[in-house]
């Protein structure tokens, strides 16, 4: 990559006015650094990833409304977590957290457990509790 080829496409870093450092060759053939605002190829890759994620979140929301899965599953995806990350935050084994995705098990959860989830997802406990209402 030549220094004047460092991509300056409008990118997702702009939101926080960020620029990233790249290594490229200058006119004399020497390596130098330069800043990039973003690159089309990366924007597409990130868009594909976000689209997939948002679709999964939407499906999880519908499942929670229909009572197929508990709202815990929806909030997990909304916070971009997977089972092992969530289990880490809850401090319980994965299989226990996975059980909480079942609406039947979810209904019987203790308040203290629900409060813990509310704290992790940074929402009011009633938002989780009364998700279907």
């Amino acid at each position: 990559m030549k220094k004047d080829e460092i991509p300056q496409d409008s990118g997702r870093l702009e939101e926080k006015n960020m620029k990233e450092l790249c290594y490229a060759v200058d006119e004399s053939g020497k390596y130098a650094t330069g800043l990039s605002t973003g690159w089309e190829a990366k924007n597409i890759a990130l868009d594909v990833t976000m689209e997939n994620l948002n679709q999964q979140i939407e499906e999880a929301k519908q499942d929670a409304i229909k009572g197929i899965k508990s709202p815990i599953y929806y909030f997990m995806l909304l916070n971009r977590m997977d089972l092992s990350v969530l289990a880490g935050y809850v401090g319980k084994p994965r299989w226990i957290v996975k059980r909480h995705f079942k609406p039947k098990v979810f209904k019987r959860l203790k308040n203290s457990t629900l409060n813990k989830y509310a704290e992790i997802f940074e929402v009011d406990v009633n938002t989780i509790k009364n998700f279907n209402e």
Partner: protein
Amino acid sequence: MNKIDFIHHQSAHCENGVASNILKFNGIDINEPMLFGIGSGLFYICIPFLKVNQAPAISYRPMPGFIFSRASKRLNIKIKRERFSTIDKSFDALDRNIDQGIATGLQVGVYHLPYFPDEYRFHFNAHNLVVYGKEGNNYLISDPVMETTSVLTREELAKVRFAKGVFAPKGHMYYPVEIPTEIDLPKAIIGGIKKTTSEMLAPVPFVGANGIKFVAKKIPGWAKKVGVKKTNHYLAQIIRMQEEIGTGGGGFRFIYAAFLQQSGELLNKPEFLDFSQQMTVIGDDWRDFALKASRICKHRDNDTNAYENLSEMMLKIAAKEKQFFKDLKKSI
């Protein structure tokens, strides 16, 4: 207020950046590419059967922490690493270091970092930054991928230091405790290159140049096996691992080329300048690959030829890298 006289340099990759900035603070003038090369940062691996972000686990660099620990070993620098069971203990130790004027590296999770753009906030726990001071409840932060320094409250810093999931940092902090007066840079450079060549030529099907070939051969099969949508998701993850912030572009290949150029001048080895140029071409090939892959993702055409072509592009890179590291190995 307690502020350490620490100079922030922006870098492409967080681990190189923290390591290089901390070494500079301690009087050892080593920049990012040099640290990356000595720490044998160039790598390729595809871990079969393991999925990350619902896509095959592919990495263009070694395990988090490896680069700095390899580099410090080759430079004879002793690094102290500490992990903590509670938040309070971790901050007592950090405050103690600040009081003693020690610029301290921290391993943190990215998700709760407030200065990151939303789309970059994932539960990735192997990010690195330096704490270089404290003002009341605020900590002064030098995050090497940022242009300037930042500030985090104790609560914000606690959240990222105790992020959970894979590579959970558990408050991990590190700083040099023993710095040698003389540094044998040529020896460290050769040691670093040797390790990289042996890893990139490893006789294992999913590591190094073989690993690139392994993934390249899989691409056409994905479309048939998991469908176009998932294949495009896989490709998007490959592009991100290769080009995202931290890589310096081209899957770290440009940083490595910069390292080879610097080493060639330092060791008076003109052949290294030639290797550097070759590595730049390989980096450009990777970028062409990323651009083509991204266009396939966007147009969502299910033309199987597109995946065949992409696979061929990657096979060529694999062959080039194999030859490159064979030649590099012979030259040292």
